[in-house]
């Protein structure tokens, strides 16, 4: 009972703090660039984000981008205050945009995830994948380039089949329609457990570099940093916001 009351007070304090900080705020523009997110969920995420910020009296407009070119073009046009971007894009563009990271995405206390290259057991060297095909969830050109460099091939030397979920990439490999799949280690383990038959001839050929989860970053013009920092840090407190976190593949922002 006491614990419950404490929680309610904490929420109330957070809410009041945001309200106070937000006293004179106007509509702010927030850009989102997360090509790995499922496009079918964008509308829900947009609505949930708008509703969440409305609830705490923050008037923000959200714009989603699938391509970096569109993101870059729109930055000039809309002059946004804030962005949630994939980590590799943040590291690549932070100096260009004078970005400052205000929060990082976490999944069960983990700041990053690892992808692996899966292929057939009889393949010993990942360079053998040159001139073959790979299945993967949609990747941004930059992250794809990074992975290709690690595999030791260029993008033109490999053909990519784009899927929406790791399971599709693994099953495509299981059915020998492609020669490799780039997936998260946890997905591979999950499928290995559910359908050992599909994975019995497959193995992890290469561990790709760790990738951090998406980041909340501010453009230099943002004034009310605290509001956003508190709001995003508390986004996981409300069950309604689960779709937002799911879209970014995280459990909270810290």
């Amino acid at each position, binding site marked *: 009972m006491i614990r419950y009351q404490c929680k309610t007070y904490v929420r109330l304090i957070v809410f009041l703090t945001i309200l106070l900080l937000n006293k004179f705020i106007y509509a702010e523009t927030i850009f989102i660039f997360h090509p790995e997110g*499922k496009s*079918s*969920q964008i*509308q*829900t995420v947009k609505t949930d984000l708008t509703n969440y910020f409305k609830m705490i009296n923050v008037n923000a407009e959200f714009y989603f981008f699938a391509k970096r070119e569109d993101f870059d073009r729109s930055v000039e046009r809309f002059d946004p205050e804030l962005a949630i971007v994939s980590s590799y894009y943040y590291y690549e563009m932070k100096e260009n945009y004078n970005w400052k990271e205000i929060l990082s995405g976490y999944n069960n206390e983990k700041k990053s995830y690892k992808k692996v290259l899966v292929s057939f057991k009889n393949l010993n060297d990942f360079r053998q994948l040159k001139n073959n*095909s790979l*299945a993967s969830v949609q990747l941004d050109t930059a992250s794809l380039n990074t992975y290709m460099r690690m595999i030791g091939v260029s993008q033109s030397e490999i*053909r*990519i*089949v*784009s*899927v*929406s*979920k790791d*399971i*599709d990439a693994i*099953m*495509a490999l299981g*059915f020998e*329609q*492609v020669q490799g799949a780039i997936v998260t280690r946890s997905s591979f383990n*999950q*499928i290995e457990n*559910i*359908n050992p*038959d*599909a994975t019995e001839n497959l193995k992890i050929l290469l561990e790709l570099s760790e990738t951090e989860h998406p980041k909340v970053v501010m453009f230099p013009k943002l004034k009310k940093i605290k509001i956003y920092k508190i709001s995003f840090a508390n986004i996981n407190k409300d069950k309604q916001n*689960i*779709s937002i976190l*799911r879209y970014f*593949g995280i459990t909270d922002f810290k």
Partner: protein
Amino acid sequence: MKKNKNIIFLFLCILLFSITTAYANERYVFIKSKSLSQVDVLINGFKQSYSKAEVSVLDLEGKRNTGKVKTFIKEKKPSLIICLGSLAAKTTVRVEKNIPILFAMVINYKRQKELVQKNVTGVSMEIPAAVIFTQFKMIFPEIKKIGVPHSPVNSKEIVSDSIVATNKIKIKLIAIEVQNPSEIEEKLILNRKKYSGIWMLADTKLYNRKTTALQELIKYSLNQNLPLIVFSEAFLKRGALFSVSINYKSLGSQLALISRKIVLDKIKPSIIPVASPIGTYTVINKSVAKKIMGNKINDIIYANVDKIYAEDED
């Protein structure tokens, strides 16, 4: 001096010839049976995966027009033709016997004997049962026995193949033969103790406009609190739990891959078997999931699907 000029001229001719040949090698045409949003998604998926390809599209507008197809092929001189839908595929194979043809979006292609031709291959519409049930098991691992009502005339082969495939993932499919669509509920009741979920096949003999089998199936599954797995998102609105259908963007990407094998790697279509679709599009009905699972539901299941009905409705 004149000799040098001739050499340069010859060199330019060779260069021009190689450029035009290379250019022609990248030319692909789509022939679609009719306009559908899925077709546009598919073509975009193809272009995104294969940005170098020069793409032209012909819409048959639902009419078998061989003349239109002939003229289009003659005009475009493609390296490969991609036919979307049964009408487009059947019309094109009749007029074109040499240029490689890839078909997709053809339901039950095995029954379309015309498509067996040496310059033809494709991607089927049938998602393998192993893929469907691996996806299902990720969400509902506790359900291990699934009833499959079907018409033996139409679907006996699919059911027996699926039984073998799903055995490997420890899911037991219970074949429920329904000779007459009006008997579906009766047959389901008769076998009730044998299964804890139902799989609806795309069986046109059972489910069509003249029968009420679909309505009865959905009503029964809801009354019995049984998960119903379907092949189209459209049935979720009526009360089905989970759909696994083709992801058309991925299908476009898969067609791009096969196209390059044929055009660039010079692999003959006759030695490329018709492939199963690689990408799936899964949707879960959240309210039905809550009704069936109650408090046992774990929100983590929603991370494994493409869309949550009706949460992600546009």
